[in-house]
């Protein structure tokens, strides 16, 4: 018999549940079921089928073993119910079960890491979208200022600022814009570097975790 650690006798799917399962209908008056619960249920059905198939295979093997014993007895051999060959078949069964458990752990780990990278991808897209918005906003602001500056220049009949006072004001404005640009550049740089660092941290953690997995035989 399989005795999987994730296996819970209480939660087993019964024919009754198949008969009585209710899927929530989609909202907003559309026809059909919510996809998520249906998928979850299918996963459950699949797990149950795997269990049943495994059990069936074990039982089938047991029947074969007993049949061979009986045939052996009829042929005048010792009527033992558990011989050396049976011990090997039994060992094969135990190892098979252990292999299935290992496969399941690897599949779970893989699925988990898949979800992590998928999340990272979604977050990256979100960060990129925000950065793009931010950049667009800065650009728009700069354009507005440039337009205002041009209008101001035209207002003075295109002449360069004459008085010291005017010149100082324009220089101050220029210095302000320069600082403004510099600050935002720094800001964006730190922001981007931070994002990259986070991604690299993730990667090295992933590598470190991977190294802890013993290699070769399980």
């Amino acid at each position: 018999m399989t005795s999987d650690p994730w296996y819970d006798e209480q939660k087993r799917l019964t024919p009754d549940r198949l008969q009585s399962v209710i899927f929530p209908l989609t909202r907003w008056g559309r026809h059909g079921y919510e996809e998520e619960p249906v998928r979850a249920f299918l996963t459950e059905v699949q797990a149950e089928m795997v269990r049943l198939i495994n059990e069936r295979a074990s039982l089938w093997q047991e029947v074969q073993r007993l049949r061979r014993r009986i045939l052996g007895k009829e042929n005048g051999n010792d009527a033992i119910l558990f011989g050396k060959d049976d011990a090997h078949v039994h060992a094969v069964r135990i190892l098979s079960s252990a292999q299935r458990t290992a496969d399941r752990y690897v599949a779970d780990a893989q699925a988990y890491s898949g979800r992590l990278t998928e999340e990272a991808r979604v977050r990256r897209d979100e960060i990129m979208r925000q950065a793009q918005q931010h950049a667009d906003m800065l650009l728009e602001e700069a354009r507005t200022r440039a337009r205002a500056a041009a209008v101001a220049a035209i207002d003075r009949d295109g002449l360069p600022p004459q008085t010291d006072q005017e010149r100082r004001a324009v220089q101050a404005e220029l210095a302000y814009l320069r600082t403004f640009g510099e600050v935002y550049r720094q800001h964006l740089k730190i922001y981007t570097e931070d994002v990259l660092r986070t991604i690299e941290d993730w990667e090295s953690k992933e590598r470190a975790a991977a190294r802890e997995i013993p290699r070769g035989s399980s």
Partner: protein
Amino acid sequence: MDIARLKRSFAAIAMHGDEVPLHFYADLFLKHPETRQLFPVSMQAQRAHLVQALATIVGSVGNVDELSAFLRDLGRGHRKFGALAEHYEAVGDSLLATFAHFSAAEWDAGLAADWSAAYQLIAGVMVAAAQADEQRHPAYWTGTVIARERLAFDITALTVRTQPRLDFVPGQSVAIESPARPRLWRYYSMANAPRSDGTVTFHVRLIDGGAVSMALTAGDVVGTELRIGPPAGALRLDTGSARAVLLVAGSTGLAPLKAMLEQLADQAQPPAVHLFFGARAADGLYDLPSLEKMAAARPWLTLVPVVSAGPGPGRTGELPDVVCGYADWSQYDAYLAGPSEMVTDCARRLAAAGTPAAQIHVEDFGWSEP
């Protein structure tokens, strides 16, 4: 040897599904524990491979040429996994024990002798091919990663120096194993024509949860020693042809076609070449700057970037639609690589539009898929 009976016997055994390979490997590992280290931790994919290989062998028993080609490739392909001649005997024992176990009452001395004889034949061809290959190639090449360049968010170019030198034809691929994920091999195409310094470049797409691709694209991959299998795959330039060339690359399918493009560029008089490079969105056109540079310097090369949706630098639409709507390709040699659905669809439509089948070349790993 009663072949019809063997086929019937196999069909009955195969009814037991995953239980059969599960039993086989458990039997093998119990009787010969030293063989366990030749396999990955998770045996799920391995079991499917075994059943598939067995089904192919049994299914093509009537076609001796096809079967022996398959078995020779299989034998050569198993060298990189560390399979030795003595392992074949152990495998044969466990295979027969497994068949006997699942055949139950059907199993008799005649069937056992037939299966045993069939296995001897199969193993004989595989071992002979492996031994012949030993004279020419190592079981695997050691590839040290010397550079890593991120070409797009999820695509990384790895440049690798191999030991000994890896001789290949542009368009070919190799199976790669990373020390971070032992016993897991994945195929990647060389993205360059052979270089004088012997280095090769691969384009690796990060697949969510993909064990090997994640190991290969990790930040500290430079310096890693990879294992590299023998060059495989049937995609290659028809150098005897004088026709113009159509290259259609979907995503990292660009790699083998870029290698072929470099090969074309080395010719004294390159033919006219159209390269369609497609991706879902603009940021998937990962190698565009280098391709644009190449096209700008070479009047015989026309580059058409394609995105299936959204704004892009070239055309918008599904790659096969854009390619087939662009021109009449019936006088061209067409080479296609990328997602298998795109490749199949594009090949079908080119053929329907008049390109002779002999002029349509697609990426094909043959029998060598690990």
